[in-house]
């Protein structure tokens, strides 16, 4: 979390703070908390060009995705029970869709193109008269590619289909103007942009009004769409995180892009190195690379050492579940050999230098250990071997 965010949150934590329940209507403790919530609502709305009244606070992007997808599907079930999404979506979207399938809905899971982007023609072909909702993420959490949500939204508008966008990975990293974008619902998370965990939001467009079925009832908070006592300190933290992001995004993106290019330039001359996902339509702070014939988790072990030696976990590398890469059509070896590098507010150039050094060393060492690398060097086609799957 950003220290500035923590400082704002502390104003609403503890006996000397404005600790009231924002729903308390009969005293200043409640009003002060409510004012803080409304201020944060405006800060969240401002980053994405929305009206504050269109922002519903939730416990996180997972809840926002659940509320958007199941809420719209349930509300519109008389109109139709078909939903379109993509195979590379976040689990919160995919699992919500699977739940709807269990309830008797039909879901089309689009295959993205090899670069991770949605083929608009494929999307158009998937839409049906009974399609009520399209849910496509703005930025993929693993490969960082940015979908053309404006174009997708236009297609949905033409067919009067509600369009939900999971923007957990894009808010604060990509410019978003909901006043102009043809998007009906958008999920946000605070902790992905240096805000607190346990808080998120759902943008619900007012004109034309998007209606959905609440997932949680009891008290009618958040215009009836999400009941439950509002966690003032967390909401304030989210507001501050969004405010900072709005102020710093442009300069920060420039800095991150330089770091990312430096990292990629530092490893791309190695043999059998592949970038996963489109290199241009991608957020500045992400690059996902497959080091062929090196298993990802073993490489990650070497990079975790890096975190220790440099004293920072900010250049985080993590092993990715391969469903996203499989959806891109990557083969088994490449899918198991991928590493996601994310750079953020606290990543320094020195860390990038260290990362390059460690990656090169580790890849070389692990390839020495790899029977697949030997086979590749001997010119044996790994796909031609009959492996005994276990």
């Amino acid at each position, binding site marked *: *979390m*950003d220290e500035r965010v*923590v400082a704002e*949150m502390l104003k609403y*934590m*503890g*006996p*000397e*703070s404005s*600790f*009231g*329940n924002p*729903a*308390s*209507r*009969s*005293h*200043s*403790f*409640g009003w002060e908390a409510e004012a803080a919530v409304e201020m944060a609502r405006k800060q969240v709305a401002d980053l994405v060009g929305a009206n504050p009244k269109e922002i519903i606070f939730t*416990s*996180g992007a*997972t*809840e926002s995705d*659940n509320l958007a997808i199941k809420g719209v599907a349930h509300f519109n079930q008389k109109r139709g029970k078909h939903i379109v999404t993509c195979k590379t979506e*976040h*689990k*919160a979207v995919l*699992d*919500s869709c*699977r739940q709807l399938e269990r309830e008797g809905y039909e879901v089309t899971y689009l295959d993205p193109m090899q670069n991770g982007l949605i083929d608009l023609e494929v999307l158009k072909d998937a839409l049906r008269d009974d399609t009520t909702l399209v849910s496509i993420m703005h930025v993929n959490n693993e490969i960082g590619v940015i979908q053309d949500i404006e174009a997708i939204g236009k297609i949905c508008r033409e067919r009067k289909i509600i369009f939900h966008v999971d923007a957990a990975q894009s808010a604060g990293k990509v410019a978003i103007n909901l006043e102009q974008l043809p998007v009906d619902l958008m999920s946000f998370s605070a*902790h992905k942009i240096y805000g*607190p*965990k*346990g*808080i998120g939001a759902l943008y619900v467009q007012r004109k034309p009004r998007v209606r959905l079925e609440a*997932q*949680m*009832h*009891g*008290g*009618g*908070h*958040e215009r009836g769409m999400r*009941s*439950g*006592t*509002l*966690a*003032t*300190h*967390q909401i304030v933290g989210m507001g501050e995180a969004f405010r900072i992001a709005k102020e710093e995004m442009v300069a920060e993106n420039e800095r991150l892009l330089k770091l990312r290019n430096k990292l990629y330039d530092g490893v791309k001359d190695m043999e059998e190195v592949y970038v996963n996902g489109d290199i241009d339509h991608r957020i500045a702070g992400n690059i996902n690379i497959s080091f062929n014939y090196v298993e990802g988790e073993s490489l990650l072990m070497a990079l*975790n050492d890096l*975190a*220790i*030696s*440099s*004293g*920072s*976990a900010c250049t985080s590398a993590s092993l990715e579940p391969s469903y996203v890469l499989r959806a891109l059509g990557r083969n088994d070896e490449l899918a198991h050999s991928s590493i996601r590098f994310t750079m953020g507010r606290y990543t320094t150039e020195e860390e990038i230098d260290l990362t390059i050094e460690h990656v090169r060393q580790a890849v070389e060492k692990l390839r020495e250990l790899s029977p697949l690398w030997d086979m590749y060097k001997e010119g044996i086609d790994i796909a031609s071997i009959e492996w005994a799957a276990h």
Partner: protein
Amino acid sequence: MAVYLDNNATTALDEKVLEAMLPYMGQVTGNPSSVHRFGRLQKDAIEQARESVAQLAGARAEQVIFTSGGTESNNLLLKGFSQHAVARTSTEQETSARIAISAIEHMSMLEPAQNLPIEVDLVPVDTNGCATLHAVEQVVTEQTSLMSVMSANNETGVIQNLSPLIAFAHERDCFFHTDASQAAGKIPLSFVESGVHAMTLSAHKLYGPAGIGALVIDKRLPISKLQFGGAQEKNLRAGTENVPAIVGFGKAAELALADLQENSLHVRALRDTLEKGLKRFNTVTIFAEKAERLPNTVQFGVDGFDGETLLMQLDKKAIAVSSGSACASGKAEPSHVLTAMQVPATLANSAVRVSLGKNNTMSDVEALLIALNDIIEINRHSAVMMAANV
């Protein structure tokens, strides 16, 4: 600072709780190796908190499911149970399961109960605000498979006599849930010993942070999950764990249990003084006075007053109280709790709830009594004046 006497709406975060949360809110600095182990530490912290919450509830750690708060816990219980019951029933056969809940439950029980795929029966309360065994027997049918009666009411503070109701439920192989959001930290709880199958808890009612709660649940009680997108919380609640809030809840539970008797004696002494003072006003009626109540709560009506006006005037005198529950709708209907107790509407409309907390002092009580005296006296004078003018 104003006198805060609305501790049933929310409590100020305890400083020790805040202290426990802070390491999980800031950036990781200091000992670099802590970065590497931080993921592990967070998991340990969650499990430690789960143990503390379990101890407060008199339950086992593995029975504790963390949620975003009491509202979510109640929704998860009711919707999760009924969806599971419906899914179990074959499509041709209509599900016959029913749920019985008391008429004085919190809105986070009553509202979801109106949105269930199965039937719900309401158990009335007597004029003391108690759901008696007799009342339960009248309502429960052969089909009733889940009963829910809160441990203590948030408005009147009436403690329900659950033992005979739980025994009755056991006789009929019926599950029993209790919303202990208000009772926790104020009276002892014994999940396992009492024989309840599920219990709702909320952190911000016991000096913990808002935005975190728990559903304590016996694994014999089957529920479906409501929020999808991950296998967190024994696959009953998807979403990134809100670690600082969970840690805060754990610390708050630990303190609540350790200081239960001390806090209880403290607020009871204040409350008894307050009630003695209130009885000097012949226009004041204390609700459920004869019933066993939480030691911190008193709800009363003032004859001839409108509750809203009374609360406003108290707020002007820097005293923060409420009419009953902090609910978002801000509607001016008489409380459903008092209505269920057959309190006349005019008296119910004048309701003031005072809920004391561990931070309150005798001077707070005196300030309230002086303020009430002023308001009631002025009103009486103006009434006399008005009568004289006629």
